[in-house]
């Protein structure tokens, strides 16, 4: 059988290419010690034009992580929303879950692209470190790729099969796909976390002279900070996903042309904010666990992080979390304006605002001030003579726990605003709830004050009592509320969509602040290694080995956030071109804040 001329030409090209490749392979085989090969093998660092290698890697890794956090966080609450839709029989949650997943779909490819860029930059700019890590973690890298493959196709099946598998057993199967999507995504994150946590906390028996081939895989994989980072990131991803969904909803709300659209995105923004703030309340406990493990691994590293050159970073963190608490509460307070009956709680908001501001001020007070000899002598020590007392952990723990209680109270008032309980024990229940708030506040303040009269090691233990008191109150009060509000009368329908635009800007501020906070914490985690690629094992000998100050880091973080939001805006716009989202039909009878407007398909779905 003869070949056509173009096909023959193509085949000749293929044979030529194969021949060249064969010669190259032969050359490499015959001359394995070629000078160029040695030079390449011994090259530790590459160079990146204009901004340098560090900035290139930093920005790429941070933007990749922001997208990754979004695509890992959103499926968690998408699958929960779908479950509420299935088991609660409320279709609007199913529609909401689908809209969450639509956002996910468009963000997913951006995550992969930035991941690929990161890999190429690591290979070309930090080949020494890359070779070292691949020598230890190559097996997990192959598994990572496999799981990523499964995750991608599970996501496509989950989204594109939404309408096809919408009834009966098929719907349960679809929901299982959502769970699987979370499983793959979580495993992918756990694997990647092992690489970066190894750089922070390599096993104790690994030293500068230990060949990477001698490092035991599992001890490197499950290193000291691996699980704390896993837990911390899982919760933070939910917070971040909620905040970005909130910002998306805020944008659509502000651009909405109909009342239906406005009502739908008002509700979606509320759900996003609720998820973000709800998970944020738990996040400090995961952060505490991570910090404790860092201290356990290496006291010097822990002290460098909290009391050394990074001590001021935590002041900035306190400022950012203060912004989050204030913006989150502000959104709830403004939102009460659309809830009939909420006006009876309005007088209390100014007191809650005062408590929150006081809390932020205490939390943002520096603990110790690093100074030179003259400065320390002038101040009489490392503590400020007047404000130093507020910088201690006793005061800070007290402040943050009171802020959490206050935020929870805001949420409770919001939740109960348009309801009138009808159970016979409603008054007693409310008194018990109030008493729980008062008792936990007393416990928090008591241990905060008592902490000044005991040694540091005992004082650290007090924070556990404070946290337990607050968590118990949150769970107990919610438990009572659920039973007390069964069959409650409505004081009037929530006017979804009737929110002033300023409330939506609060959602933007929340999203930007969360994103910036993630960048800052990324800098903290990476920066505490200082001039080590792998802590006390592999020294950073590049021109960028010094860890920059916070001001410099802030500029880079802001640039990362700006790049991220620009891309998010672009890909959401692209997603909107492809498909119209579901919008809500304003319902005059939306019963409570836990529900939302009735939804109606608007085509395209």
């Amino acid at each position, binding site marked *: 059988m003869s070949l056509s001329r173009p096909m023959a030409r193509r085949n000749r090209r293929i044979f030529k290419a194969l021949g060249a490749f064969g010669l190259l392979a032969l050359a490499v085989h015959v001359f394995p010690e070629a000078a160029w090969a040695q030079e390449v093998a011994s090259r530790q660092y590459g160079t990146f034009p204009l901004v340098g290698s560090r900035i290139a890697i930093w920005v790429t890794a941070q933007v990749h992580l922001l997208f990754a956090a979004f695509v890992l966080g959103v499926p968690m609450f998408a699958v929960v929303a779908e479950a509420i839709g299935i088991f609660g029989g409320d279709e609007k949650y199913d529609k909401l879950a689908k809209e969450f997943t639509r956002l996910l779909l468009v963000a997913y490819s951006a995550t992969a692209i930035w991941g690929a860029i990161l890999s190429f930059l690591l290979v070309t700019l930090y080949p*020494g470190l890359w070779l070292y890590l691949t020598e230890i973690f190559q097996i997990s890298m192959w598994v990572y790729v496999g799981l990523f493959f499964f995750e991608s196709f599970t996501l496509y099946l989950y989204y594109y099969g939404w309408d096809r598998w919408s009834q009966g057993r098929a719907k349960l199967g679809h929901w299982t796909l959502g769970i699987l999507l979370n499983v793959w995504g979580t495993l992918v994150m756990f694997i990647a976390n092992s690489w970066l946590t190894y750089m922070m906390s390599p096993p104790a028996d690994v030293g500068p002279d230990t060949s990477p081939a001698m490092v035991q895989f599992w001890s490197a994989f499950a290193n000291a900070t691996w699980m704390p980072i896993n837990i911390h990131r899982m919760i933070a991803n939910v917070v971040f996903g909620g905040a970005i969904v909130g910002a998306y909803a805020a944008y659509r709300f502000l651009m909405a042309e109909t009342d239906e659209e406005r009502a739908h995105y008002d509700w979606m923004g509320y759900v996003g904010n609720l998820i973000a703030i709800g998970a944020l309340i738990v996040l400090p406990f995961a952060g505490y666990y991570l910090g404790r493990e860092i201290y356990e691994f290496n006291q*010097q590293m822990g002290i*460098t992080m909290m009391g050394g*050159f990074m001590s001021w970073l935590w002041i900035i963190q306190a400022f950012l979390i203060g912004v989050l608490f204030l913006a989150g509460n502000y959104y709830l307070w403004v939102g009460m304006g659309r809830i009939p009956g909420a006006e009876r709680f309005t007088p209390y908001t100014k007191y809650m605002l005062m408590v929150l501001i006081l809390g932020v001020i205490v939390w943002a007070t520096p603990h110790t001030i690093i100074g030179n*000899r003259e400065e320390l002598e002038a101040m009489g020590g490392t503590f400020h003579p007047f404000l130093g007392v507020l910088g201690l952990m006793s005061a800070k723990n007290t402040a943050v726990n009171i802020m959490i209680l206050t935020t929870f109270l805001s949420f409770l008032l919001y939740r109960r605003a348009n309801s009138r309980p009808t159970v016979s024990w409603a008054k007693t229940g409310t008194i018990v709830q109030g008493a729980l708030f008062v008792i936990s506040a007393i416990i928090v303040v008591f241990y905060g004050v008592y902490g000044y009269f005991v040694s540091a090691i005992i004082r650290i233990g007090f924070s556990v009592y404070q946290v337990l008191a607050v968590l118990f109150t949150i769970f107990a009060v919610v438990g009572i509320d659920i039973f007390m509000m069964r069959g409650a009368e409505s004081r009037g329908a929530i006017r979804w969509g009737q929110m002033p635009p300023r409330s939506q800007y609060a959602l933007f501020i929340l999203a930007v602040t969360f994103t910036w906070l993630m960048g800052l914490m990324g800098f903290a985690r990476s920066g505490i290694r200082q001039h080590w690629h792998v802590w006390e094992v*592999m020294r950073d000998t590049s021109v960028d080995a010094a860890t920059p100050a916070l001001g*410099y880091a802030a500029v880079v973080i802001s640039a990362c956030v700006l790049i991220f939001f620009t891309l998010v805006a672009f890909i959401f716009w692209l997603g909107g071109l492809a498909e119209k989202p579901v919008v809500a039909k304003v319902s005059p009878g939306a019963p409570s804040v836990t529900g939302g407007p009735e939804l109606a398909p608007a085509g395209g779905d």
Partner: protein
Amino acid sequence: MLVENLKILAVVLGTLAVFTLVANSIPQVQSVVPEDLSFGANVSESELTSSGEDLYSGAGGCTACHGLGTVAPNLLTDEGGTGSIGARCANRASGQDCKEYLYASMVEPADYVVEGYGPIMPDMRRSLSNEQIWALVAYLQSVGGEVTVTGADIGTGTDPAPASPAPATAAPAAATTTTASLDPVEIMRANTCFACHVLSGEGAPIGPAFDGMGARVDADYIRRSILDPAAEASEGYEAFAGLMPSIFGGQLTAAQLEIIVQFLASQQ
């Protein structure tokens, strides 16, 4: 729509600007890389103390703990009425003068934990070179005391410390290897380990037996014992403390050392 988009952009940029401004308005502290030091025999006191001060307040990371007064003693200011470190160092350990005490407390900190504080200080040889440690000693002496460190101290055998660790991917330091073998028994034979240790009937029972060593001690301990045998005598062999030469750190390649350590740790 354009106005609304501009407003959103203004909110985002405004928020970023505020955060960036706040982060730039606080004291800017950079973590610098410890500068390599090289002192000649005639190094001056001011050279030493100046380098030491830079390290103390910067790349050495000393202020992270010693500046707090809660997790480690204050060094630059008074500590419990005993004065600053230069004034009190000579009285800290019997039989050691100021510079001996300061040097030893940096390279073997676990043996010099001050009452009331935890054993949190790392062996500074893991992150600093011998020259850097001596510069720190000189600086700390200068804080309330007299500097007695000289170029002779830096070059003498007072230094049991290896130099600052080389990058992990760099070639091992020029070791005077006795064999190129990577077989653990062969390496030990070439380095005359069996002159004092027994393995499977080979060797003399002067030091701890290699048989069953992994069941008694871990890999870290074995590595430490080879590199710094004088640091700790094995239980039951106190009478022979100091007998084992401390030359193997320079004699073995890194790979050989690790092979021996893992081999002995696996002897159950």
